[in-house]
C-alpha cells in the first residue's frame, strides 16, 4: 500500500509537469487550429534560456524560469507573425499541410540550432530548493515539490486568465468562431499572436522548471512533444480541462503501470506504451477524446 501511495504521488508530480506542456499545445490548437510540432523544441529552448539566465547572469533560478517564459513568448510571437500568419491571410492554399511542414521544420531547425549553439552536452540548471523531504518511504527531491507547486500556480493563473478576463474571453471567442469574434471587435490576428506566444511560453516554462530535475540537452523536447500531443488527443483537442486531466491520467498510468505491470522488470520498457494504450481505449469509447468537441478544421 505504501508503495502504491508513493507511486501515485510521483505520478501526480509528473502529471503536473505534463500538464504545463500540454496546456500550451491545447491552447494553440484551440485558437489557431494547428498542431505545433515544434512544441517540444520550445520546451527545450525554455530550459536552455533558464539555464543560461541563472548560470551566466547569476539570476535567481525561479526568476530565470519566468524570464525564459518571456523570451520564449517573444520567440513564439515572432514565429507566429513571420511563419504562421499567412495561414490566416489567405496567402496559403493548402493550410493543413503548410502548418505541418512549417512547425515540423521549425522543430528540426531549433534542435539543430541548439546543438550548434549550446553544444550536445547534458546540463543541469541550478536547484530551486536543494535537499530532500521524506514522506513515508517516499523521499522526494525538494525541486520536484517546488516545481509541482510552481506548475500548479501557473495552471491556476492560466485558468483564471482564460476564464475570467477580457483577454481570456476574446481567446475563447476566437477559438469558437473567428468571423463572429471579428464582427464584435476582436482582432483574430492579435489573438493568434497571443495564443501562440502564451502556448509556447508555457512549454518554455515547463522546460525551465524541469532543468534541475530531468537535466537538459538539445534533444530533451522530442519525447515530451510527442507525449503532449498524446495528452491533448486523449483529453480532447483544444480542451484545456481535457489537457489537465489527460496529463494527470498519463502521469499516474505511467508511474503505476510501470511498477504494477504483470512483469515489473519489463514495466519500464513499456512505459511509453501505456499512454498509447490508454489513448486507444479512450478513443474507442469516445472518439473526440475525454472533453473534446467535434473536430474543427481551419477555415
Amino acid at each position: 500500500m505504501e508503495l502504491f501511495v508513493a507511486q501515485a504521488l510521483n505520478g501526480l508530480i509528473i502529471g503536473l509537469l505534463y500538464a504545463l506542456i500540454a496546456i500550451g499545445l491545447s491552447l494553440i490548437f484551440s485558437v489557431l487550429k494547428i498542431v505545433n510540432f515544434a512544441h517540444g523544441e520550445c520546451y527545450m529552448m525554455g530550459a536552455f534560456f533558464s539555464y543560461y539566465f541563472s548560470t551566466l547572469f547569476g539570476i535567481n533560478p525561479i526568476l530565470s524560469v519566468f524570464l525564459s517564459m518571456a523570451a520564449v513568448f517573444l520567440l513564439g510571437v515572432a514565429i507566429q507573425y513571420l511563419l504562421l500568419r499567412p495561414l490566416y491571410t489567405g496567402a496559403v492554399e493548402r493550410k493543413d499541410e503548410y502548418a505541418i511542414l512549417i512547425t515540423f521544420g521549425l522543430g528540426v531547425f531549433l534542435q539543430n540550432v541548439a546543438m550548434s549553439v549550446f553544444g550536445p552536452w547534458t546540463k543541469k540548471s541550478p536547484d530551486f530548493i536543494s535537499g530532500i523531504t521524506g514522506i513515508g518511504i517516499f523521499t522526494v527531491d525538494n525541486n520536484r515539490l517546488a516545481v509541482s507547486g510552481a506548475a500548479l500556480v501557473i495552471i491556476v493563473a492560466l485558468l483564471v486568465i482564460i476564464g475570467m478576463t477580457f483577454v481570456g474571453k476574446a481567446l475563447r471567442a476566437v477559438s469558437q468562431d473567428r468571423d463572429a469574434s471579428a464582427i464584435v471587435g476582436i482582432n483574430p490576428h492579435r489573438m493568434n499572436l497571443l495564443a501562440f506566444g502564451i502556448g509556447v511560453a508555457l512549454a518554455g516554462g515547463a522546460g525551465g522548471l524541469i532543468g534541475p530535475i530531468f537535466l537538459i540537452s538539445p534533444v530533451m523536447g522530442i519525447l515530451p512533444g510527442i507525449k503532449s500531443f498524446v495528452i491533448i488527443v486523449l483529453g480532447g483537442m483544444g480542451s484545456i480541462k481535457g489537457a489537465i486531466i489527460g496529463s494527470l491520467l498519463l502521469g499516474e498510468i505511467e508511474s503505476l503501470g510501470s511498477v504494477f505491470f504483470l512483469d515489473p522488470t519489463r514495466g519500464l520498457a513499456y512505459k511509453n506504451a501505456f499512454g498509447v494504450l490508454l489513448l486507444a481505449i479512450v478513443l474507442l469509447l469516445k472518439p473526440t477524446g475525454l472533453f473534446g468537441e467535434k473536430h474543427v478544421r481551419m477555415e
Partner: protein
Amino acid sequence: MKKTLFVIGVALLVALMGGSSVWCQESIVIGGVAPLSAPGAAESGAEMKVAMEMAAGEIGKILGKPVKLQVEDTRGLPEEGTAAMNRLADAGAVGVVGEFHSAVAKAEIEAANERKVPLIVSEAWADVITGKQYPYVFRIAPANSLFYTKVADWVKSIGAKNVVAIVENTDWGLGVDTVFKENLPGEKNINGQAISYTSIVAERTVSDFTPQLLMYKSMRPRPDLVMDIFTGTGEYLIVKQAAELGLATTRETAMFPVGTSALYPEYWETVGEYGVFSITKTGYHPLLGVTPAIMEFNKKFEDKTGKTPTFAAMEAYDSIYVMAKAIENAQATDGDAVLAALEKIRYDGVLGTIWFSQERKPDYMFHQWPGAKAVLIQYTAKDQKYTDAELLWPAILKP
C-alpha cells in the same frame, strides 16, 4: 564559337576528372566513425574525434602519401552507422576506425564486411561485434564477457547479496545484463550467501526512473548494489534520482554507474555531491602504470582540449596508429592486404602492445585485442577527476 566552347568544356571536364583521380591517388583516406551529436554519447564521440585527428596529424604520411582523416557523425543510431560506413567506402577509405555505441557498431560491421573495408572498433563492447567473426572486423575495446564476468567476481568478493540494475535497451546494456544474469543469481558470495540479481530494462529515452527506484528501495533485504547500466543522460539521471530517494549511495547501498559518461566533468555538473562514493569503470587509471606513451598522449590531449582524456580517446588514438601501421606493413591499400597485415600486427600503443587474437572460441575472441584492461574506481570527493579516484579493483583481462 560553339566549337571553341565545346573544346574548352571537354578540356575542363578531362582536367577535373584527371585532377580528382590524381588527388585520390595522392592521399590515403582513413575513416573515423563516432557519435558527435545526440542522441549518441557526444561527449565520448567528441574526444574520440580529437584523438583521431591528433594521431592522423602526427602520422602525416603513409606509403609516401598524405593521410586524410574523414570522420563521420553516427549520432548513436545504427542507420547512421551504416550510412557513414558506406559514405567512407565510397570515399575510398582504406580502413575505418572508431565507434562508441554497440548497436551502431553492430550495423557498421555488416557494412564493413560487405564493402570489404577493414574496421577497427575502438570503444563498443557487445560480444556480438567480434562474435560474428567477420574477417574485416577487429576490436581494441574489451568484450562485455571479458570484463563483466570479472565484475561479477568482484560483486561476490564484496559480499553483496542483493544486486539490482536498471539496464538500457541496447546491445551493450542487454549484453552486460546477460553476463550478470549468467554469473550472479544463485551464486555464493564470499560469505557463502546466495546472491539475487534483479534487472529492469528501459528505453534510452526514459527520464524518470523514480517508480523503479522506489520499488528497489522497498525491497527487503535492501539492495547492496545498484548497477546503473546506462550511458549519457540516463546514466546521470539514475545516479541523481537514486540519491534523491535515499536509495544509493548510502551506508547500505552502493551505486555503480557502469557507462563511460561517469568519467566526464559533466557527471559532476549533473549529479553534484550525489556522485561522491559512486563506483565506476575505466580502461585507464594512473595506478595501472603510467608509460611515457601515456604521459605524452595525455599532455598533448590536455594542451589541445584542456580536458583529461578517457580511455575512449586513447583507444581511438591507438586505432588510427594501428590502421596506419597495417597499411604501411601491407605496402598496399586494398582491403585484403590490410586485413592480412592487421592479423599479424603488433603495435606498441598508448594502452599497451596491441595485437589481435585468431582464437575462435569463445566466439568474441576472434580479432579481439586480448590485452585490453579495465578497472573499477570509486570517487571519494565531489568534482574529482577519474584519474584521482581510488582504484577499487584492478583486473588484467585475459581470455
